[in-house]
């Protein structure tokens, strides 16, 4: 048995043909990807086959050439948010909040309670939509197209909800350092409750289609097995780790955004195979629905953003109406000018004293109508001013849909991050994948790969 992997498929096939009659047999090289209907993105799996069995494999993750970490060094902290949107394009809100949490921790900012609840709410909505996409897509790759359509239908409802809150479906840029972009729309609660109820029905419907389906069961049961110990050594987190029996969840272990106040369970599997990963994801969606319901129940009135002194601003001030010309008489308003900006008047306006202001963008109406707010706006937006965390570094882990999503930020005291590192949850899973696949058959690559929930934007940043 030859052990080396022959690098070229044609060459390998040719050799195989020539040696057909000889006693010496060789392994065959099979390329899956970089463009394969069941491979997400530009992943290429170079599998070494012995008959139908995978003997070894090498995984190329390709490159999107976005350079997230490099781009972040160029812009200001606030300008990083659009980049974080594009890390995991199925649940961008989680990435947004995760980045904001890290900067807030460095600056010692505590966001108001309403903002925390909104963040939890949007986090869980994103988690459901992420799992719906993952389970739906991997079911489709195994032939269950109906399930895919049903799940994408439910995801569509959730995305409509996200759209009504953030103004976009994927490129949301909703988080701000110290708060969120805008408050929830007025009729949000009612719509959200309806969508959550409908989604729960879709989940149960799809579960009944898949769970005891002979074809689905046979193709995912005992496939792509990884033990809890091995998963930990590879640094795998999230549903992939939990399916093998270890109940590690950042929301429980090191709660953030007030997750400790919610009542939910962490589902844990037993065998660490694709079937358990499916079950864990389905159960996680049900738990997320529970969290969303609790968040809606407790949603407190009040501000959504912090002001520079850590005090609260009322949400009405944050309305963005002025920008759209919907504020009556805005253009004819007289600006409230401060006679002596550095003089006596400053004392009465501690909230807008430019030196001490950290992360507060004033309401647009304020910006248009008084000079202090205008200055504050520029102080946050202009290059060379901006949000400035103190010198130092910080790593904040959060529970992304796939596992631990962490941001590590190094600040040199300026308004540009010195270094931003994103710890993507699917990177360690892809690292372990070659080991997981060995010993399985060629057809098993697809359900196993589907259960990784590989997101290219996050994988190579």
């Amino acid at each position: 048995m030859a052990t080396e992997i022959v690098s070229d498929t044609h060459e390998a096939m040719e050799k195989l043909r020539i040696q057909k009659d000889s006693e010496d047999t060789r392994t065959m090289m099979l390329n899956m990807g970089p463009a394969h209907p069941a491979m997400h993105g530009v992943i290429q799996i170079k599998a070494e086959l012995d008959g139908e069995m995978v003997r070894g494999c090498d995984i190329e993750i390709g490159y999107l050439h976005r350079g997230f970490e490099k781009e972040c060094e160029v812009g200001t902290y606030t300008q990083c948010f659009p980049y974080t949107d594009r890390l995991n394009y199925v649940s961008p809100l989680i990435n947004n909040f995760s980045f904001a949490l890290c900067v807030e921790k460095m600056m010692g900012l505590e966001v108001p309670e309403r903002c925390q609840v909104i963040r939890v709410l949007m986090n869980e909505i994103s988690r459901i939509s992420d799992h719906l996409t993952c389970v739906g897509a991997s079911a489709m790759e195994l032939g269950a197209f109906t399930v895919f359509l049903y799940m994408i239908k439910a995801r569509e409802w959730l995305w409509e909800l996200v759209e009504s809150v953030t103004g976009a479906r994927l490129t949301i840029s909703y988080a701000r350092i110290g708060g969120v972009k805008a408050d929830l729309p007025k009729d949000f609660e009612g719509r959200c409750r309806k969508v959550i109820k409908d989604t729960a029905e879709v989940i149960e419907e799809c579960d009944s289609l898949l769970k005891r389906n002979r074809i689905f069961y046979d193709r995912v049961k005992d496939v792509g097995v990884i033990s809890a110990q091995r998963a930990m050594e590879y640094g795998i987190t999230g549903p992939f780790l939990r399916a093998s029996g270890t109940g590690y969840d950042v929301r429980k272990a090191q709660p953030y955004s007030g997750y400790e106040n919610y009542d939910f369970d962490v589902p844990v599997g037993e065998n660490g195979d694709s079937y358990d990963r499916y079950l864990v994801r389905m159960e996680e969606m049900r738990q997320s629905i529970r969290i969303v319901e609790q968040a809606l129940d407790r949603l407190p009135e009040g501000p959504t953003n912090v002001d520079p002194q850590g005090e609260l601003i009322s949400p009405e001030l944050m309305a963005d109406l002025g920008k759209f010309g919907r504020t009556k008489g805005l253009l004819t308003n007289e600006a409230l000018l401060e006679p002596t900006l550095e003089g006596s008047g400053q004392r009465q306006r501690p909230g807008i004293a430019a030196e001490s202001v950290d992360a507060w963008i004033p309401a647009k109406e304020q910006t248009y109508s008084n000079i202090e707010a205008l200055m504050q706006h520029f102080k946050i937006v202009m290059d060379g001013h901006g949000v400035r965390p103190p010198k130092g570094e910080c790593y904040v882990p959060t529970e992304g849909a796939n596992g631990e999503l962490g941001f590590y930020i190094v600040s040199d005291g300026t308004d540009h991050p010195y270094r931003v590192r994103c710890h993507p949850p699917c990177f360690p899973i892809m690292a372990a994948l070659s080991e997981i696949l060995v010993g399985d058959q060629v057809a098993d690559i697809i359900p196993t790969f589907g259960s990784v929930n590989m997101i290219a934007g996050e994988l190579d940043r």
Partner: protein
Amino acid sequence: MAEDSITLKKLREQFGDSIIESHSRLGQDTAILPKKVLLEAARMLKEDPTLDYNFLMDVTAVDHFKRRPRFEVVYHFYSLNHNHRLRLKVPVGGESPEVPTLTGLWPSANWYEREVWDMFGISFQGHPDLRRILMYESFEGHPLRKDYPFDKRQPLVGETE
């Protein structure tokens, strides 16, 4: 000053003189070690039952362009049983910076170290398969270095062959 965590205490007991710095700002334990004790420290972190760091969560590097030594390799550890974290930093510099690999202790180090090599050009002594992971083989330079000329062009894939 707050009480030191058990990890920092242990590290200080074991490597008292060689620890360059240790603190827990923002509630995050951080230790800066010279690279000669990295492997020994990592083994202790993994095998000491009171520390029990079973996750190597992340490996990355920071390019302090104007500082000497220039680079810092940053490790993030997590212990599931004790629910504590540690950030370990190893300064390296010179023409061809190099640190020992941790692949023998945590297999997760394999890809992380490949990525650090690809992005920063810090090589890992004893790594079984130190290839580029994100960029292609004929790519020149290491893009996350601060002095990487990002406005210059690169040879296309396969052009150099």
